[in-house]
């Protein structure tokens, strides 16, 4: 199936927005006290969020993890509300309660982002059960990293989803590191996707830096899911350019390795292809880039000018 032009444009835009959004965060983190708390970025991995979310419909849901910015932006979350939340402001999507780690945007069907590694898969399975129960043509995507696949609840969730043929897509972004531990140091199997065989579901390995390949594989998994054929585990091979968090000195990541992966950056790849195929002109591309720069700039201005929550607001919404 050829990928429609509009989808390619959507993916390019998602890639550029996520990258610009996080580059700005990297810069802001250098300014002492600007952003309280912690910062976890997905720079270099944006093709997974962009490609997967382009393959989804608005009624589809995503359950995300601590490295969530590209997922949420690609699903349509408001950059202003995300930025303000990351700043800890009361205009943030969670009124300053979650920061970057638990961003929740129910309006775009991104109800749960969890930093508890491996916590998301069972929740995604339950959410998908409700979709199946109501006979909706919809899926739930669960984003996890390679580290999460060693958590017990990941395995419980795969078994449950397979058992009842639930419409879930388990999306594993294998960025080669779980904390400071290299993939080979925490997993003997050459591919995480191999684990799918143990749950009688398809497991596929895809280049996670190729947005179009991501889109195609996610579209296939979605088609299977809504047809009642059950879940899929997709492993996207990619790489984390930054450390686990911004305070990570990355002493365990060889500089040559980072450079080699940066050479496979998903953005120039898609951009060059679209320019070559005439799917976007140089001028239109420039307009898209400046539009995105303005959106991010506006998000930062909004976040900076917004008030912090009042201490008493922390006491609200414990119970109905």
């Amino acid at each position: 199936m050829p990928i429609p032009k509009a989808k390619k444009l959507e993916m390019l835009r998602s890639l550029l927005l996520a990258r610009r959004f996080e580059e700005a965060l990297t810069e802001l983190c250098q300014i002492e006290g600007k952003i309280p708390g912690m910062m976890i970025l997905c720079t270099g991995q944006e093709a997974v969020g962009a490609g997967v979310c382009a393959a989804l419909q608005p009624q589809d849901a995503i359950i995300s993890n601590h490295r969530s910015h590209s997922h949420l932006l690609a699903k349509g979350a408001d950059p202003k509300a995300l930025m303000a939340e990351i700043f800890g402001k009361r205009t943030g999507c969670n009124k300053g309660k979650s920061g970057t780690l638990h961003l929740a945007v129910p309006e775009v069907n991104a109800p749960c982002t969890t930093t508890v590694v491996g916590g998301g898969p069972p929740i995604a399975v339950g959410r998908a059960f409700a979709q199946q129960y109501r006979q909706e043509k919809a899926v739930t995507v669960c984003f996890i990293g390679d580290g999460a696949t060693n958590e017990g609840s990941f395995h419980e969730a795969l078994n449950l989803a397979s058992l009842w043929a639930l419409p879930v897509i388990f999306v594993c972004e294998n960025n080669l590191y779980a904390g400071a531990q290299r993939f080979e140091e925490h997993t003997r199997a050459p591919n995480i996707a191999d684990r799918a065989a143990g749950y009688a579901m398809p497991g596929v390995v895809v280049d996670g830096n190729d947005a179009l390949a991501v889109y195609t594989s996610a579209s296939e998994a979605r088609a299977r899911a809504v047809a009642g054929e059950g879940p899929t585990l997709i492993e996207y091979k990619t790489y984390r350019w930054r450390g686990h968090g911004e305070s990570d000195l990355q002493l365990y990541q060889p500089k040559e390795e980072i450079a080699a992966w940066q050479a496979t950056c998903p953005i120039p790849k898609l951009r060059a292809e679209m320019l070559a195929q005439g799917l976007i002109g140089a001028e239109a591309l420039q307009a898209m880039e400046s539009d995105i720069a303005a959106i991010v700039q506006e998000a930062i201005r909004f976040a900076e000018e917004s008030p912090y929550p009042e201490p008493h607001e922390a006491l609200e919404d414990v119970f109905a």
Partner: protein
Amino acid sequence: MSKLTMVQALNLALRQEMAKDDRVIVLGEDVGRDGGVFRVTEGLIDEFGEERVLDTPLAEAGIVGMSIGMAVNGLRPVCEIQFSGFTYQAFHQIESHAARMRWRTQGRLPVPMVLRAPYGGGVRALEHHSESREVYYAHTPGLKMVIPSGPRNARALLVSAIRDPDPVIFYEPKAVYRAYREEVPEEEETLPLGRSQVAREGGDITLIAYGAMVRPALEAAQRLEEENGVQAEVIDLLTLAPLDDSLFTASARKTGRVLVVHEAPRSFGPGAEIVTRLVEQSFYHLEAPIRRVTGYDIVIPLFAREKSYLPHTQRILKAAREVLETVA
């Protein structure tokens, strides 16, 4: 009205709520064809089908995590964990997700789910099968912790828990499951969560208990009347969190003498919070130091001789008499 055991009363609550609301889903290990370890879910699968009564694999974190996912997507799951000691396998889902989602999302993502689990001693089961560790959940902001004491209030509280917009941990005293029968009306009955009840009125001493400890507390009160001519008031908490302290503080102000009874281990147990509130709110009315009759700070020991561990009528009586004899 018919006379039901607590097991039958809970089954009635589930059956009626499932009939009334097709969002209610029951899931857990052997809750379907087998009807649950203690038969609380017996017959539900025949009436409501496999789509609504799910026999899950052995996967506590998966069961609770799925329930959360169902709850945030419009369903009303009631999951069963076979014994409360196995909820620890799902602790991260309960604590990190069920309890926090409403708060994190300013109420946009409530988690209307019920986790049912039998707790406590009384059937001489080993370790995890007999524990009373309800404080883990009572201590966790965002969770409601409900523990009925008899068939009728168990039914009414479970109905309320299913309809409640927040996650409810519902511990069922297995010692009471089939211990006695009570009139339970066929027509709908609810009890508000977060409210305690006066189980017996009296003006001389206050006994505070919940769950399986309410019966021995009532028996002790009866004997105090018969043998000492003393009127004990018994407060049944029914919900541990959020804790209703209005009745027991009022009672303490009236009697000046208080005894707290729980099966849970003593240190940092429910009694610690109850006594603190009494000290904060009724200190000047107290005529004797408050006493606690509790489990010990150990793993459930000597299953064959569990009566030596569990608080029982005799221990409650002895402690109550000591409180009564103290002259301020």
